[in-house]
Every structure is written in structure tokens, then in C-alpha cells.
């Protein structure tokens, strides 16, 4: 928890600096959250609130409690309070569109926070999920540039699972076309569940007779299942495995050498970026003049919109020390059971 407080303090400092320059006092920034059932959103809220309040602006928010209907009502309520910007974490990215139209009709700016909805007037701020896939593939390629690759994808109902896979293929395409990399197993994993990933990996190893040279797992939880399956065949450590989320256990595996990379999306960064963008919008800055904004049309309906795509951080053996320094994980947690070869653990 210490790390959160540190980053928040840092964010507050940054925000005060920006706020001082932007003179955005008295504006109102509103957020409609999809659910506080998942703990991470509370971290996001804390990050945004700090930046907004440090800038002298007002922060209001609502929690849709995992209901599209409630979220529509929430947004109407927010519009009535006449904020300058409304950020929306959409529970349902299609059902939210009429509410977004109401926001722009009321002359209020909207931001799609982390979850995309395809409205050309809105600013979309998220981590580059295709980029996460690219980073995974790049890090794995560094270790293994040819052979049989297995793809353990996330839940079939989650668009991120496809984004990630898409990013991985972009990087691997050249080698695959050249016939150097072969896709031997490719499965969706129900509910992103580690034990399902383990079973899928076991079946993959069975059907290929252990001839798997690298595994692209789309998150850290599933990577734990993949590593368990590899370990049972004595392959853990010799077959590169990817993951994302910066799970504590995954960073430990990276230190141990059984996982190659965990791509880490620091949600504090996302909150800070969104808050700063919101303040800029409230001050009247044009959307495409906000630093970091680029055109994005990678959504389902290919609608072109302005977006800020943050680059996530790959955690590998080489930079575990940074994660420890940033306070994301303690040295004891990261280095539990590590015998040698990792500088950060010495």
C-alpha cells in the first residue's frame, strides 16, 4: 500500500504544477464508474481525484454497480450537475452510446476511460492493449525467435483477448510467414481462469508431444497455469512464457526465470493522464491539441476517434529492480526462492 501512497503523492505534486499553469480553478470533472466491485477502480478514482482537487477543481463520481441501466441514469444525474467533463468507464460499450450523445448535446466533453465506446466526439484514454500484445511477443522473440508457439488467449467474450492476440501476431508475422514460427496451439480460456489455462496447456503439450518452444499467455494468472503445466514436464524455465498485470507472483516467476515477461499497466499513470486531459479539456483546449493524442480506429466499428494510448511497462529479469524501487513489490516478495543470476535480488 505504501507504493500507492507514494505515487499518489507524486501525482499530486505533478498535478499542482500543471494546475498552477492551467488556471483551471472552479471547473467540475465527473466520473461514471461501471462498478466498484473490482478493487482496481478505487485506485483509479483516488489517482484522478488527487490530480483534480490539487488543481482546484471539483470532483464528483457515481458507481453504476455493474448495471447498464443504472449507468444511464447516473449520467443523466451528472449532466444535471453541469460538469465541464464527464469521464465514463462504460459497463456496456454499445448501450452507453445514447448517454454519450446526451453528454455532447449538453455541451459537455466526454472521455472514454479504459473501456472504449465508439463516439467520434469523445477522447479515449487507455493502455495500448494491442501494444501489450506487441510487447509480449517482442520480449518472447528476444529469447526464442523460431519454433512451435502456443497461444493461450483470454476469455472469448472479452475484446481485449483479441486485441492482445492481434498485437502478438503483428510482431510475429514476419517469422510466421517465413515458416520459422509455427502456431501449434491456440485456445481461448474460459473466464481467464488459471486452472483452465493449465488444462489447455497440458492438452497442448500432450498433442504436440512436448514440442512447444514458447508460450504467449495473455495475462499473469493464466501464466501461472501455463508454468505449472510446463513444470510437470520439466520444461519450466526453458520455455519462454509471457504475461501481463504485474502480479506479485508473476514478478517472482520472472525473477525465478520461469516466466519471461509480465507487462505492467500502472493504473495510477492512467488515472493521472486522464485527469490531466480532463482538466485541459475543461480549460477549453481542443481535443487534438492535448499532448499525446493520436487518431485511433481499432475498435469494433472502426470509428475514428482521438485517443491517448499509454505505453505499458514490460517487467523482465533486467528491470525487476525498477518495480522494487517504485514500491510495487518488496524485494522479499520478488526474490522469494531466487538463488542466483538476478542482479536486483543480490
Amino acid at each position, binding site marked *: 500500500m505504501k507504493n500507492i501512497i507514494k505515487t499518489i503523492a507524486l501525482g499530486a505534486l505533478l498535478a499542482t504544477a500543471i494546475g498552477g499553469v492551467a488556471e483551471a480553478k472552479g471547473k467540475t470533472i465527473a466520473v461514471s464508474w461501471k462498478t466498484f466491485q473490482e478493487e482496481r477502480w478505487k485506485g483509479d478514482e483516488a489517482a484522478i481525484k488527487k490530480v483534480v482537487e490539487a488543481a482546484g477543481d471539483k470532483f464528483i463520481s457515481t458507481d453504476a454497480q455493474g448495471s447498464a441501466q443504472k449507468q444511464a441514469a447516473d449520467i443523466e444525474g451528472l449532466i444535471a450537475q453541469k460538469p465541464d467533463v464527464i469521464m465514463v468507464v462504460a459497463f456496456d460499450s454499445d448501450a452507453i452510446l445514447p448517454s454519450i450523445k446526451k453528454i455532447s448535446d449538453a455541451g459537455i466533453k466526454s472521455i472514454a476511460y479504459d473501456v472504449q465506446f465508439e463516439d467520434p466526439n469523445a477522447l479515449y484514454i487507455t493502455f495500448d492493449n494491442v501494444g501489450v500484445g506487441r510487447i509480449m511477443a517482442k520480449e518472447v522473440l528476444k529469447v526464442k525467435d523460431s519454433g512451435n508457439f502456443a497461444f493461450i488467449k483470454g476469455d*472469448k467474450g472479452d475484446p481485449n483477448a483479441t486485441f492482445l492476440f492481434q498485437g502478438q501476431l503483428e510482431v510475429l508475422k514476419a517469422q510466421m510467414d517465413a515458416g520459422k514460427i509455427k502456431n501449434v496451439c491456440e485456445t481461448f480460456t474460459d473466464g481467464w481462469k*488459471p*486452472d483452465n489455462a493449465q488444462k489447455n496447456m497440458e492438452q497442448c503439450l*500432450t498433442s504436440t*508431444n512436448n514440442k512447444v518452444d514458447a508460450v504467449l499467455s495473455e495475462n499473469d494468472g493464466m501464466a501461472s497455469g501455463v508454468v505449472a503445466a510446463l513444470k510437470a*514436464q520439466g520444461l519450466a524455465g526453458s520455455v519462454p512464457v509471457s504475461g501481463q498485470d504485474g*502480479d506479485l507472483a*508473476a514478478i517472482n516467476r520472472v525473477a525465478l526465470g520461469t516466466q519471461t515477461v509480465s507487462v505492467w499497466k500502472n493504473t495510477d499513470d492512467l488515472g493521472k493522464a486522464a485527469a490531466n486531459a480532463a482538466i485541459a479539456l475543461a480549460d477549453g483546449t481542443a481535443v487534438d491539441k492535448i499532448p499525446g493524442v493520436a487518431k485511433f480506429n481499432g475498435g469494433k466499428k472502426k470509428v475514428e476517434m482521438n485517443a491517448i494510448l499509454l505505453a505499458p511497462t514490460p517487467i523482465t529479469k533486467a528491470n525487476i529492480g525498477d518495480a522494487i524501487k517504485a514500491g510495487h513489490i518488496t524485494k522479499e516478495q520478488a526474490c522469494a526462492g531466487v538463488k542466483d543470476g538476478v542482479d536486483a535480488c543480490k
Partner: protein
Amino acid sequence: MSSTGSSQEPGLNQEGAVTRFFRVTEINPRMLGMVAALILIWCIFDVWSGFINPNEGLFGGSFLTPRNLWTLLVQTSSIAVMSSGMVLLIVMRQLDLSVGSMLSLVAVASAVLQVYQLGPLLGVGHPLIWVAGVALCLALGTGIGAVNGALTAYAKIPAFIVTLGGLIAYKGIAFLLASGETVAPMDQTFEVFGGGVQQSWLGPFWSWTLALVVCAVIIGALINGRRQRTRFNFTLRPVWAEFLLGVVGSGVVLGITKVMNSYPWPPKLIENFAAANNVVIPAGIEDRDGSAICMAAEKFVRCTTGLIYYTGYSLPVLVALAVGLVMTFIATRTVFGRYVYATGGNPEAAELSGINTKWLTIKVFALMGTLVGISSVISSARLNAATNSLGLSNELYVIAATVIGGTSLAGGVGTIYGAMLGALIMQSIISGMSLLNLPAAYQDMVVGGVLVLAVWLDQIYSRRLK
């Protein structure tokens, strides 16, 4: 069938050979049907996977290989353990929808204890850690089960509601315990319960020894049964039937053991083991498809005749089999089991016979909880990690396995071995389809279909019987 007082038994000459066979051997035709269905499913998957990717299975596929069957049994063990408890609950006209969430909660609690609490305190690898981890799983599972039971029996809230609440609530507690993170790695000794490491493999010698002991027990039980029947002047089975049961029973045990003993250690592990224990590796010619390890030009290579070890039974499978035996014993040989079945058949009659059905309800739920504890050890040890999603939707698989295994939701009827066989059928379908690289959505569809089909066939069967 006639059911008047004067002619209870149909004349033997009217009885068909098949009916007579089942009556005399006391083999349940339903169970035989399930075994046949299982074998059919296996064969289909082996043939089908052979088309996609030829391998060394019985019909040229990857399914009927020692390796896949070995993995299949390990994958089934967690659900099979829980389904044996669900049988008693459903027999007693109760239900536990919370087993999946309970498994997550128990596993995460034990992992937090091992990784975050005891690990730093005692030092990673301290023997107390795994003991405490297992003890916590069993105790917490039993405790939560008892709470479910007490709310059902004494607060008179229907079990469906109590455990539906549990399904939602326990998941939440599991999330809070580890803030939604995956907790890993488990203690090294604890991991042995998952079957993923070589310490949890019995090896051929002990596997054969165990198999022979089981065969001896089967034959002993047949002889003892015959002696009992003689003592009380009951009709005896014909000698051929006794022999048949003995031979088939022992044959099945030895056959399964043979398959388990044909699965070699992964070559990499043989290599590591040889290096660690200074075992001399013979020289040989490289063969990429071989399972043994040879030396060729100063290098370790795979070959057909070289250093090789076989796994034999793995610990989670043995645990599941032991649970099956103990639960069958409890269900059929103890007063507790008798009360459970009688209460399921007619709760009012049980109450009027002086059975304390409330206390019985608590005990059955607590037993279910203990089994969830055992399953949580197996699942988290196997994954070498625990997360709040570990047991997600396990309750559905456990109930499905129990129902496929012939347990009637109306209560009073169900067998432990049936439910465990049901779990094996279900896992066979899931693993087989995954082997064919079919998406999980199809697996769900087929498993759901099989569940409905099994109950439908069951009803046709029992209607014809009447």
C-alpha cells in the same frame, strides 16, 4: 414385474439370460452403461485426434495414450472428490451451490497463510508450512460446511438459498483475502498433492504393490461375503459369478495400473534426476520420438532404449480413489450413511424413527466442506497458485457429475462410484475437445448436452424398469 403378496419372484425360467446375469452378479446395469459410454467417448476422441495429429494412441490418436489417460485422471480428481460429497447431500434432498466459491476461499486462505504469513516467518520450505496449509484447508472447509448445514437445519433456510448466498459471498471473501491477486508459489511439499512434481508419483514398484493389495482385498471381500451368506443361510451367488467378479475386478485394477505405469517421466526430468543423483546414462542413438534419455556424442538426447523412469499413480489420483473408497464405506456400511439415505427416501419417516435429522444435516454439510478442503489442496497444489477464480463454476461441474452419475435430485438414490465416473466422463469430454483444439464454447455446449441426455436416458431406463 409382479408385486402381489403371493408371487414375489418371477419364475426363473421366465427370466431372460441378461436379467439373470445382472441379478446374480449384482452388477448395476446402469453403471455398466456408463462405463460403455465412457469407453465409447474415449475411442471417438482417439480416432478423431488421430485424423488431426497422428500419435501413438490405441487408434492412432492422442487420447488413448498412457500420457493423456494419466493426465485425465489427475484433471478429474478435484471434481471427483467433491462429487462424492455432493452425492450424500443430494441423496438427503439438500444441495450445495457454494462448493466452487468455498474452494476458492479455502485455497486462497491457505495460500495467503503459506506465502505471505508462514513463508517469511518460518523461512520458505519449513515443514510446518505445508502441514499448516493442509490443516487450514480441511478445517476451514469443514467449518464453512457446518455453517451452511446449521443455517439449513436450524435456521430452516432452504439449502438452495443458504448456499446460493455462499456462492456469492465466499467468492467475495476470497477476493478480499488476496485483493484479487494470484497468490503463488505454494510450499514445495504442499505442491506434491497436485501431482505435478516427481515426488508425487508412486513409481511402478509401489503402484504394482498397491494394485496387488487391492486385488487381494477384492478377492477377500468376495470370500468374506460368501461366508456371511452361508452363515445366515442366504442364497449364494453361483460360483461362476463369484469368479467373474473376482477376475473382472482384479483385471480392471491391474489394467489401470499397467496404463499408469506406462507413462514415462518427461525426458527433461529424467535428465535432471540423473544429473542430481549421478545416474549413469547409457549411450544410444538419437530418436526424437523416444521417451528415454541417452548419451550421444557428449549430449543428452531422446532415444527409445536408454534411461527411463515411469510415473505410476500420482498422489491426487490416489487421494481421489481413497476418498471414493472411504465415502463408499461411509455411505453403505455406517449408521450415518444409512440415516442419510433413509432421510432422503422419507424425511418424515426418518424423523419418526428417532433420527436427529437436523444434526445429520449439519454433519453431511460439514463432510461436504471437508471434501472441498481436500479438493482445494489438490487444485491449488496442482496450479502451484491460488486465485479467487480457482473454483469458479466448479459447483456446476460437481452437481453435473453427480447427476450424470445417477444421483436423483428427488433424493434417496445415488452412488459414490457413479458420481466419480460421471466426473470422469465430463472431464474426458472437456479434455478430449481441448485436445482437438475445439474452443471452450463447444466444450460447454457438449457437457451441457450430455448432462441433459444422461438424465433423459436415466428416466427412460427407470420407467422401463417399472
